[in-house]
Structures are given as C-alpha cells and as structure tokens.
C-alpha cells in the first residue's frame, strides 16, 4: 500500500544501478556470508557467486532474445585436401 504509492512517485523512478546490480547478484544466487570478526584470510571475499551464476543469467537472458541457432559441422570444413588417399601399404 504505502510502499506502492512511494514507488509510483516520480522522484523514485530514476534508475538505480546499484540496486539493479544487487538484484542481479541475488538472482544469480550470490552467497552473502557474514564477514567474521576473526578473519585470518583476507583474500577470501565476504560473498561469492556460485559457479553456475552466469549460466543461470544466460538461461534467463535467452528468453529475451530472438537468437538464431547456429549450424556447425566438421565434414566439408577441411581447407586442404591431401591428394593421396590413405591406403594399406603391402
């Protein structure tokens, strides 16, 4: 109710890229672990994206594209044809 009314307020409708990024990370399943006080390894970030994060985003993204599938083959792509065919040497 109240929030909805706020949202519709024109001042609120500027695009907030930080919020967008946060929402994208959430969608990709970011693991937001609390930063512990006794942090002995400083290289480890406080949060991390699972390995399939962008896979998930890609799957969602494809719903918004009219992307044509591509055709791939091996036969017929060899550029130089060796003139001598392989034969058993007897």
């Amino acid at each position, binding site marked *: 109710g109240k929030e909805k009314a706020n949202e*519709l307020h024109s001042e609120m*409708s500027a*695009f907030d890229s930080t919020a967008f990024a946060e929402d994208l990370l959430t969608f990709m399943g970011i693991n937001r672990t609390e930063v512990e006080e006794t942090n002995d390894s400083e290289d480890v970030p406080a949060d991390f994206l699972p390995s399939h994060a*962008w896979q998930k985003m*890609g799957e969602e993204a*494809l719903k918004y*594209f009219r*992307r*044509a599938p591509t055709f791939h083959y091996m036969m017929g792509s060899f550029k130089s044809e060796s003139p001598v065919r392989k034969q058993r040497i007897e």
Partner: protein
Amino acid sequence: VDCIPTQVERHSQDQVNQKVNELVQFLLVKDQKKIPIKRTDILKNVIWEYKNAYSEIVKKADKILQEVFGLQLVEIDSKRHIYILVNKLLHAEGQHLCRGKEKEKMGLLLVILSFIFMKGNSVKDSTLWEFLHLLRVYPGRQHSVFGDVRKLVTEEFVPGGHPHPLTEPPEFKFQWGPRAEKETSKKDVLNFVAKMQGKEPAFWASQYSEANQGTA
C-alpha cells in the same frame, strides 16, 4: 565503332535456384560467429556473375530460411546492405539454442544492454566498467567465465553488432548496436529489468514510454 552487345546474362531458373541454396548455406556458415553479413561478401563469395539477380536470390534465400529453419534474414543497415539472421519462431527453445559459454555470454550481454537502455541509451565506457565491477566482473582482470571482459565486449559484442561504441574523443560511449534492435527490443529489456527488480515496467516512466513507442 562496333556496337558492343549488352551482355544481359540470362540464367535458367535452375541455376538461380542453385545459387539460392548456396546462399542459404553461406548465410548459415557466416552466422556461426554472429558477425553481420555484408552484401559485398555475398556478391564476392556466392553470387558473382548472377549480380543482376541479386535481389531475387536474396529474397528466395530468406524464404527458404523462414520455411525450413524458422529463421529470418534481416537487413540491419539498408545503406550498406548488412544482414543478420534472427529467430522467427515464437517462444523459441531458448534454453536449447545456446550452450555453455555462449549462454553465459548472452547473460552478460543482456545485462549490458539493460544498463545502457536504463541509463538513457548511452553510457561512458568507464561507467559501464564501474557497473560491471558491482557484478564481480572486472575489465582487465581474468574472469573465470568470460576471460578478458573488455576484450569480450569490444572484440565480440561490438563487431557482432550489439553494443555500439560512439567514438567521440575524449569520451568513449556505448549505445545499442543494430543487432540489439532486431534480436531483442527495449520492451523486452525493460521487462527483464522489471522482473529482476521486482517492479512493474511502468515504474520507470520515461523508459516505459520509450519502450512502448511504435509498438502500440
């Protein structure tokens, strides 16, 4: 002075049809890398002496692409005659049509296109990199999925016709490329942003009205 007979090449319908089939193959092969296809390449590699039948051959190739593959040949630059292939099937099986790395790249691409559109159709390159930072994607640093992201954007997405750099030194800006307009739409992209942010598309008033222009 001898009268030079105008050599109006007449080709049989069979010959033209063979050229049409060759062109379909050529378009499928050229689309493997998603780089837009130029008229000059079509002429040079397939049509050559059939130049006077060019538009007939292109039209027929498009018809075959539609009838057999559900694809469409779309001209993205009508001055220089540059084409791409897009999917014509409604609710195409997106999840099947791209795999592995390609799928992940499409994810990044949609995020970038969304960002450009939402920021008013053009962003400075530094602004884009800053935004990608928030997504743990750092240009110049090796990403586990995308490798060198700056290279991916400038050497693959841009030549592919998706984002398009506006080079007006000293500022380097990105906007949508001609492929983006055909392969997706502002309306689709706004729907994606709205879904991600859990809001109605109309929440962003100016983007909403822009996205609905010409579609009403």
